[in-house]
């Protein structure tokens, strides 16, 4: 099993330089907006979510994780025509959850990253659907095959992407 339990002292905590902390989420949001207009299949990926998970897990600070998730989510919301806060709430929960999990577990290896992304993608969608339907009154269609397919696709993309983003990590 790739996920191993570690105590708080054993876990490595990372930090990121300010340009990286700002530019990486911005690039992710830009690509998320730009690519689906050219490559329609790309809309099943959620790059801002993957970046949220990566930063949350690497920093291992729940407060930093939830604030990063909220900021990225709200920026993503601002590009849509839906009310602000749908992605914001979903990514806040994911940021908090991923960083809390990062404190408890070693999620540095590819297998662990795949499973963590798979799990948090589903959590993200469940929270989004709940808020959108419960608070905003939107009618959304939940399809397990579609959601699971998207979750696997995002998890598969997360492994090489996290490996790429590892280069920007600095030990705290």
């Amino acid at each position, binding site marked *: 099993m790739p996920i191993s339990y570690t105590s708080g002292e054993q876990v490595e905590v990372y930090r990121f330089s300010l340009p990286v902390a700002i530019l990486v989420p911005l690039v992710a949001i830009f690509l998320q*907006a*730009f690519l689906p207009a050219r490559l329609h299949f790309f809309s099943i990926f959620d790059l801002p979510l993957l970046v949220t998970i990566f930063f949350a897990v690497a920093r291992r600070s729940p*407060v930093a994780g*939830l604030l990063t998730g909220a900021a990225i989510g709200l920026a993503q919301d601002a590009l849509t025509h*839906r009310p602000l806060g749908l992605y914001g709430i979903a990514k806040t929960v994911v940021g908090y959850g991923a960083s809390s999990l990062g404190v408890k577990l070693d999620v540095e290896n590819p297998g662990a990253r795949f499973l963590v992304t798979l799990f948090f993608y589903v959590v993200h969608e469940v929270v989004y659907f709940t808020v959108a339907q419960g608070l905003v009154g939107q009618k959304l269609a939940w399809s397990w095959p579609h959601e699971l397919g998207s979750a696997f696709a995002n998890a598969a993309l997360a492994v090489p992407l996290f490996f790429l983003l590892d280069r920007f990590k600095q030990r705290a």
Partner: protein
Amino acid sequence: MESLLTRYRNVSILMAVLFAQVLGLAIQVRRAPTGESNRLIRVWAVAAVTPLEKAITRMQSATGSLWSNYIYLRGVRQQNRDLKYQIENLRLQQVRLSEDANQARRLQALLNFKEQYVAKTVAAQVIGSTGSEHSRAVYIDKGSDDGIKNEMPVITADGVVGKIWQVYDAHTSLVLLINDQSSGVGAILANSRLQGILRGTPSGEVVLEKVLGDEQVLPGETVLTSGGDQIFPKGLPAGVVTSVSRGPDAFLNIRIRPAADLSKLEEVLVITKKEHAATEVTTAQPTRAADILAQRLPSVPDNAAEVTEGPGDEKPAPAPGEANATAKAQAAATQAAGAKAGALPAGGPAGNGSAAAKASQNSSANAVKRISDKPVTSTVKPEHSPPDSTPVEAKPQ
């Protein structure tokens, strides 16, 4: 209390952030859904993303143009030959259709129909999307400086695309696509003239709603805009029926394949100006050789109408004949509407019984009735009469 907050600091912050966002959502939901309340945040986000999108799109377009116009010219000769052949065929088709169109226009003028014209369009390039499966919309590179305003219709050569949801700045606007579930387009089936509402589904498909279950709709039938939404002009192609099934309620479940490929949008047209005008009969009709002769020959009597019209038209027609002519005109108008695809208001004999359909049917019938009731109403010249001939008058009994 303080120690409790310190102990549960992370959870407390999480709750505070979530509460703030839920509160923000509640405020937005209470207000108008057009995003006016948080316009500044959206403008910032759009301003951060779209300049790069525009730059890449222009670069891509320039490179593509260079490649296709100057480098990759393979097959151009063959394509040229094919296009020439196609032009010949289209010319022949045009000759046939122009006669039908003239006839339809004359009948519309006779019935006092008002037509909507697309007076002005602005071409725009799609620069990006919202990046969300839950928000089916695209950004275009035209904004307030180009005369773009909210709610303007957006089309392609193939058909309807959507409408302007928000103009963000001088050169950026958001277009809500017709397959988004919050969009709605007044639509009419081309053959059966049934009216409905075109809507997007959560999965991104397009369906035609509000068509009663006892109506007959066949796959393959074309769907056009009805103009009932006051946004899209009447008669634009919206899609084709792909499947029909009985829905859980009293309505049919009709799936539509959009006429425009919404997943591959590159260039679109924004209709910035529409005009409502009564149909005019064109006076620049081809004049027959016989008519020219009739004008020049000295033996032709002064009342040219008497010459050009048949013997039965010399006197005011009796009541049954006039009623028959009126009925024929109405039938011809309905037929012409079918041929002209949405040029006439919906609600023909096969209407679905909706209020709008009935209203337009009544107005159509009233228009015909008015013509037969008024002493002198029609001043339409006969089709082949000389330009200076006396207008034919429809007199009552």
